[in-house]
Each structure stands twice: as structure tokens, then as C-alpha cells.
């Protein structure tokens, strides 16, 4: 099991809330840099509009859960999707953000909304 940095406050068990559901393979590890897909489909979506296109780091793997987009349509949502808490610097999310430069926003995002970020961009 990967060791998670204690500085992030993320727990070391991996995932935090395991279950027995059939799941997509886990693709991302804590501290890995990811980008939220800039997509605007229809249906019930739990990836907020404000965070799409933003890059951040994986804070923890929460576990794998049925896809809410599918549950909303009376379907099973399986295989379960890995769900991460992703940490973003507020100054990278909001134009003209006024606050501490290390202020963050942490959002739960399902794996299918994430892609590997350009590693050349500035670290969190």
C-alpha cells in the first residue's frame, strides 16, 4: 500500500472506505497531479462547473462507489468508479482570488472526470 504523506492529513489505509463492489481499476495515487476534464455533458453530474479544467493534486482515494450519473437514471452505477478528494490552490481556481496564497479547495471527484495533468505546471 502506498504511504501517504502525513502532512496532507490523508489517512494511510488505501482506500479509506473500501467495499466489495466490482470497480474500475484505480489509476491515480496520492500527491499525483491531475486535471479535471473540461466537459459539459447532460444528465446528473457531481463535478461542479467551477472546477472543470482546473489542475490539482490527489489528496486521498476515498474508495470506489457507484457512479451517481448512472444511479440518477435508475441504473446500478457499476462497475464502481474510484472517487478521490482532489486539492486545488484557490488562486489557480478563481481569477483574482484574494486570500492566503496557500488557501485550497478540496473537491470529491470521480476518476472518469480526471486525467493526468501536465507535470510541467506549478506544483500545489
Amino acid at each position, binding site marked *: 500500500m502506498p504511504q501517504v504523506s502525513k502532512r496532507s492529513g490523508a489517512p494511510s489505509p488505501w482506500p479509506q472506505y473500501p467495499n466489495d463492489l466490482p470497480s474500475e481499476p484505480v489509476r491515480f495515487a496520492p500527491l499525483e497531479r491531475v486535471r479535471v476534464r*473540461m466537459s*459539459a455533458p*447532460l*444528465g*446528473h*453530474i457531481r463535478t*461542479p*462547473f*467551477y*472546477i472543470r479544467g482546473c489542475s490539482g493534486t490527489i489528496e486521498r482515494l476515498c474508495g470506489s462507489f457507484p457512479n*451517481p450519473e448512472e*444511479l*440518477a*437514471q*435508475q441504473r446500478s*452505477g457499476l462497475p464502481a468508479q474510484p472517487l478521490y478528494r482532489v486539492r486545488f490552490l484557490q488562486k489557480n*481556481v*478563481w481569477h483574482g482570488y484574494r486570500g492566503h496564497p496557500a488557501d485550497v479547495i478540496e473537491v470529491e471527484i470521480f476518476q472518469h472526470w480526471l486525467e493526468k495533468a501536465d507535470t510541467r505546471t506549478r506544483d500545489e
Partner: protein
Amino acid sequence: MATRRHAPEALIARSHHDMGGRPAGKVKRVEHEAEDWERRVDALMVLLTGVLDGKRQMTVDELRKNIEALGPQAYDRMSYYERWVISITQTMIQHGVITTDELGRKMEEVKARTEDPCRK
């Protein structure tokens, strides 16, 4: 993604309920003591989602989806549990647990039963 602000696609690409970061006013620190009927709606949701070991009839995701489908005006003007009761009822119709006709007739029956008997 460039969309003209008032273009129809802007209304669809970003749903009205997805409001994080939008301009808004000061937070009104109101407290609302839930009325009995509101608590019953909350309790019904607990029951129907199978939280207390009952059979799961619907998911919280369907509740949310049907609230999101209310449209901006209804969403803004309805209170929290008004949105919930409409959404739960819509979900039950979508599942075929109740039909529109059954609901209509029941509502007429309840209305007649609870109307002020002094009023003719």
C-alpha cells in the same frame, strides 16, 4: 469553453443548481424550525432510500436529479422541502410505483377531506 452568456447553450451547459463561485448576496443566517410535514418528508426520504434497513425504493441521486430538473424559477422560489416532496413524488411516478392518475385522484380526495367544512 466559450459560450455567450445569455445564449440557450449557457442555460444547459451549466445547470442552475451548479452555483459554486457564482455572484450572490450576503448569507442570511436564518434558522428554520422544520414543520411537521417537512419532517415527514425527510423521514420518507430516509425510508425510501433504505437507510434504516428497509427496501431501497429510490436513491438520493434520483432525488437530486429531479430537483435539478425543476428549472431555475421553480428551484429558486420553492422552499427546500417543497423541492424534496415534488422530487420524491416525481421519482415514484417515474418508477411506476404510483401513476399520475392515482396521484391526481388522491390529491382531490385529500383536498375534499381536509377542506374547511364551514365553507361551501
